[in-house]
């Protein structure tokens, strides 16, 4: 749908209070439709195996979106869409998207449930805080990983020259420029000069400043826009979206449905998630990222999130051409085996459900640089291996992995892990022997559990 028309509706849609939108429109309709379409969770299932329920979830989510529209938080107006507009927009969703350029050009695809095609791998620091001194080195290490298709969110630079940065300040603009320069430098050093870089520098309009064809993020690099939970946009996001669309960047649209929130239980939140997928596509999202949040856990490998991700992704895979990708955040942190067990569980659930993958990252990184390119390699390997599995085959592996970390999901008590500089030899940019041993250990465990890793 034409962006100009959507921007216009931000200014002309019906005035509504935020609480009324969330309670009377989203929550009331989500509860009603979840019940009406018999979308449910039995309290046990990790990976949805019920195709008919996935289709009902799609119907419920589409109907929910037609009733809610999207809320513009700044104008306090609802952007409404007719059924014809939604159907037409969904009909024109492109099932593949090229990113990067030259020999580094890659293509992401809409995937089917149990698709044997390898998922697209967005991998990088995923917005963990990265210190300016380590920014280029650790992003170079991520970019060296051959299975990583797109360098993903090269990290928040929340201080430069020791100065903390206010997001709307002049320093934030300077930071955005450095973000673009250093990200490009990292992929150049890795020998992939035209590699796609998914950018998300700051939650402010000045993020636009990292765009430059020579030294920064280019028109071939996907740019991220994040919806506010649930089904809401703000002026900052819309401003950035207006620029990136006009500049020709692929649009990476993300949303974060809240389990226990306005959608209620995991089934109701899956219905809200489907509505959010459609909202993202209506706004021009060409890759759509689901990143479930949870009222009690900040991470995405709890059982509720595993089920929600599987059900919502299957609804999208079976009923649309939307290119879906799933966020992977964990309680455990890089340097400890729990980190890898968690992201593997979710990758197995999401990839067999028709998703591509984004991540991984600890939900609560400790300090700066709490990331690992080697774990990114294992993440990509597991995601690729999952492409050959059925949901039935993946389920017992997901359950077995969940058993290993279910009592350590509390972020305070989850393994602390180590920063990049302790996990890697900074001279050779290779993992330390200890970190390599963690990789070997978990990979061995996964093979024994039945993940077809080579």
């Amino acid at each position, binding site marked *: 749908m034409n962006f100009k028309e959507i921007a216009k509706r931000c200014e002309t849609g019906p005035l509504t209070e*935020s609480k009324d939108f969330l*309670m009377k429109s989203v*929550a*009331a309709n989500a*509860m009603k439709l979840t019940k009406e379409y018999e979308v449910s969770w039995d309290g046990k299932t990790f990976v949805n195996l019920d195709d008919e329920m996935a289709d009902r979830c799609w119907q419920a989510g589409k109907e929910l979106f037609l009733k809610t529209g999207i809320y513009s*938080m700044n104008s306090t107006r609802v952007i409404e869409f007719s059924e014809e507009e939604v159907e037409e927009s969904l009909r024109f969703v492109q099932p593949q998207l090229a990113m990067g350029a030259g020999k580094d050009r890659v293509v992401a695809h809409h995937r089917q449930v149990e698709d044997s095609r390898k998922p697209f791998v967005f991998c990088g620091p995923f917005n963990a*805080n990265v210190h300016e001194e380590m920014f280029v080195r650790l992003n170079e290490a991520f970019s060296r990983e051959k299975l990583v298709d797109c360098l993903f969110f090269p990290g*928040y630079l*929340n201080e430069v020259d020791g100065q*903390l*940065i*206010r*997001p*709307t300040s002049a320093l*934030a603009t300077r930071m955005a420029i450095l973000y673009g320069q250093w990200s490009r430098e990292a992929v150049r050093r890795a020998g992939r000069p035209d590699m796609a870089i998914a950018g998300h520098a*700051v*939650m*402010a309009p000045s993020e636009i400043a990292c765009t430059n064809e020579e030294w920064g993020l280019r028109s071939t690099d996907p740019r991220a826009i994040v919806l*506010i*939970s649930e089904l809401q946009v*703000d002026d900052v996001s819309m401003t950035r979206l207006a620029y990136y669309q006009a500049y020709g960047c692929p649009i990476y649209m993300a949303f974060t449905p*809240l389990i*226990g*929130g*306005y*959608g*209620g*239980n995991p089934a*109701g939140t899956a219905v809200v998630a489907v509505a959010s997928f459609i909202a993202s596509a209506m706004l021009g999202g060409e890759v759509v990222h689901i990143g479930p949040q949870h*009222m*009690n856990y*900040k991470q995405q490998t709890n059982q509720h999130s595993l089920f929600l991700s599987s059900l919502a992704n299957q609804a999208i895979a079976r009923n649309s051409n939307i290119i879906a990708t799933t966020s992977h955040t964990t309680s455990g942190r890089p340097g400890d085996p729990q980190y890898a067990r968690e992201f593997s569980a979710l990758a197995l659930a999401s990839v067999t459900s028709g998703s591509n993958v984004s991540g991984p990252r600890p939900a*609560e990184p400790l300090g700066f640089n709490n990331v690992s390119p080697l774990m990114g390699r294992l993440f990509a390997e597991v995601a690729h291996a999952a492409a050959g599995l059925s949901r039935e085959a993946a389920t017992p592996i997901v359950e077995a992995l969940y058993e290993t970390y279910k009592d350590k999901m509390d*972020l*305070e008590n989850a393994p602390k892990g180590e920063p990049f500089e302790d996990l890697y030899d900074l001279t050779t940019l290779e993992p330390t022997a200890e970190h390599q041993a963690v990789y070997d250990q978990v990979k061995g465990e996964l093979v024994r559990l039945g993940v077809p890793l080579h």
Partner: protein
Amino acid sequence: MPDAERIYEAMKKSIETYDSDAAVAAAEEAVAAGLDLLEAVEVGFANPIRELGESFHRMEIFLPELTMGADAMKAGVDVLERALDESGGKIEKKAVVVIGTVEGDIHDIGKSVVATLLHANGYQVHDLGIDLPATRIIEAAESHSADVIALSALLSTTMLYQRDVVELLQNKGLKDKYYVLVGGAPVTQAWADEIGADGFAHDAFDAVQVLDKAMEGRAK
């Protein structure tokens, strides 16, 4: 006193069924029956809403139900408070809290859940909203005679503004007057310590516990 028991039961049911009209009716009946209104607040509304909060924590109910239950409680307690005012009485609050999301940050849900649970647990809460400049937060704390300033930030870029609130309080010589509680996805105890905040909460339930401990003996 059977009348009191029946009315308290009606109050409890109004919370459990998220029914503001029923809460108001039960509260009006309590006033008309000449019940001990402080006891009515505690037994009829405060205990059931705390139970609702615990059900929310166990994920037996969800945010819409918690919000509707809190709205019902507020409607009922408002009736009792007005009657108490007229008779010169006063509902004891653990503390007065002003809460909001800091400047540049428009995330509302987490902050609203904290506000709801604090209210349910006996705090007088003034929810100032989102995207709040430090000056506005401090002005509101002063005008509401607050004990606590609770600051939410969901982004690692906007949590910087939590520091600005503490710094401005220090500059104005007001820091010791308030207990400053910080929270939000990227916020940690280390950050709270670094900026000189008094407390840090992981989530809404933790916020209640942290403030209960800090406010012990400060009922007003």
